[in-house]
């Protein structure tokens, strides 16, 4: 028991003394997950717009696949990406394995189903007449689609936050394609794993506290935004 208390105290010391390694890991985590989320939004939102606004054969199947992939085990995805990025793999020539870039790509793939599914639902919830309205005001097909997307912005924002949440808290992909190399690809989750295995419990706890604080902070922001969204909704 005293070991844990001792660990917590030392963890706070590390956090508040500005320990360079703890800060380095935290910043890398934020950067990697943030970049992964942005990439997922960049390619996920156009897919969501196609799924929500266009009719084509197999649309339901595609939607089903994306919503199923939300729950993909990170270790399984990590393993697949490891095989893709490793020397003998199809993208081995890029030498991306064990780089932050590999983690960014891997986490972007991981959270894309979240972005696509959430954003599709949000765009589908927009009044169908918004598209027609924009057209009667002179908008082209693509301008009208953007008008619809603007109406769904709250939902797309929520999709982004949920994606960031998932990216920063996952271990499997970061470990398998990043390798958790100290000072190079180490992020909060792999850091916790590594330091716990090494017996450096206070560093593991410090990283754990930071990770929890980030996740709690995001969820708090999320609930505030949702409440605002409810308030902003028309009363009728």
């Amino acid at each position, binding site marked *: 028991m005293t070991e844990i208390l001792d660990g917590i105290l030392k963890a706070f010391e590390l956090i508040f003394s500005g320990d360079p390694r703890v800060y380095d890991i935290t910043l890398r985590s934020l950067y990697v997950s943030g970049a992964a989320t942005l990439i997922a939004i960049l390619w996920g939102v156009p897919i969501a717009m196609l799924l929500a606004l266009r009719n084509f054969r197999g649309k339901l199947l595609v939607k089903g696949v994306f919503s199923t992939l939300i729950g993909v085990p990170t270790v399984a995805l990590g393993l697949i990406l490891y095989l893709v990025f490793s020397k003998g793999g199809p993208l081995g020539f890029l030498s991306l394995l064990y780089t932050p870039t590999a983690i960014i790509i891997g986490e972007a793939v991981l959270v894309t189903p979240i972005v696509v599914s959430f954003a599709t639902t949000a765009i589908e919830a927009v*009044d169908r*007449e*918004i598209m*027609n*309205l*924009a*057209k*009667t*005001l*002179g*908008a*082209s097909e693509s*301008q009208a689609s953007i*008008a619809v997307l*603007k*109406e769904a912005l709250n939902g797309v924002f929520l999709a982004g936050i949920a994606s960031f949440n998932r990216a920063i808290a996952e271990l499997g992909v970061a470990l398998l394609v990043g390798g958790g190399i100290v000072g190079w690809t180490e992020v909060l989750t792999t850091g916790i794993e590594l330091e716990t295995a090494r017996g450096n419990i206070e560093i593991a706890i410090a990283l754990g506290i930071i990770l929890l604080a980030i996740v709690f902070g995001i969820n708090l922001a999320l609930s505030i935004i949702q409440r605002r969204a409810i308030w*902003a909704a*028309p*009363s*009728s």
Partner: protein
Amino acid sequence: MGSTFELRSVTKVFDGITALNDVSLQIRSGEILTLLGPNGSGKSTLLRILALLEKPSKGEVYFQNEKVTDRNMFRMRLESTMVFQKTTLFSTTVYNNVAYGLKIRKMSKNRVNEEVGRALRLARLEGFEKRQAKKLSGGEQQRVALARALALNAKLMLLDEPTANLDPKNALIIEETIADANRELKTTIVMATHNMFQAKNLPNRIALINDGKISEVGTPSEIFGKFSTTLASFAALENTFAGTAKLMGDGTTLVDIGNNVQIATTTQKSGSVSVFVSPEDIILSEDLIVSSARNVFKGRIVGISDFGSIAKLRIDAGKQFVVQITKRSFNEMQLNVGSEVYMAFKASSVHLV
């Protein structure tokens, strides 16, 4: 001035249902044309085809003697604009709503400011610029939608039941704004309505539409002057009844509309007529009250529709009447389907057509 917009033998079929059946219609430059017909008669479909939102299954649309095709559709759409029956607004400020179409047309910021100001003045919404559009009342929201359409200065403005489900005050402002726009900006207007009284007061020309076909087109006096069989068949029009009028000695006319219902009116006429009473002109009470109203009927509520600040009740008094009251009165009177009520309206608010 010739015809600027034209439908030639337009048929529109949705999932096997024919919404428009071989309709040809010429819209003259600068006129107000009212499409009068019951719900489901094809008015909205006709407007949506003119707005180039729907393509005809058969037939052609011409804008200024040029046939509308897939290739010129985007350019043609800039010539017209539409206000929907169900108010549709962007989730942003009144200013941004009204400015949307102007920004699409890449106008300078000063021009946009000017045009938004002008349109808001026309719709009597000065000072509303920074308000969130969706937080306004139903009537104000529809006025924002109207201002947004007016701002564009489009040659053709399409209005789909713009005053349906609005309180009389906002409905009047919208009607006056439409008349102003037509007079001052020379905007050509096509408006759908199922309110016969509105059709009679506003337009230069009326097109009667029923079952996806236009049966008659003419001036109000041409349409309402003679007893129109089409008009009489519009059973779905609110408070419109066909009947036989008889002149009474005291200067009033008594119209027998069947089922032992006789309506008194101050208009003098005899023979076959159509009678119309505006739903907001009927006073509702729980008990029989002594008043100057010549027409008093006892009836039972058979339907209630909620439209935000107002409620519309269907009342069976031998014939079915629609009565519009404020939501507040509705709540205070604790009315329900099945409640017995008295309807009263003055002989002078009965219109013969």
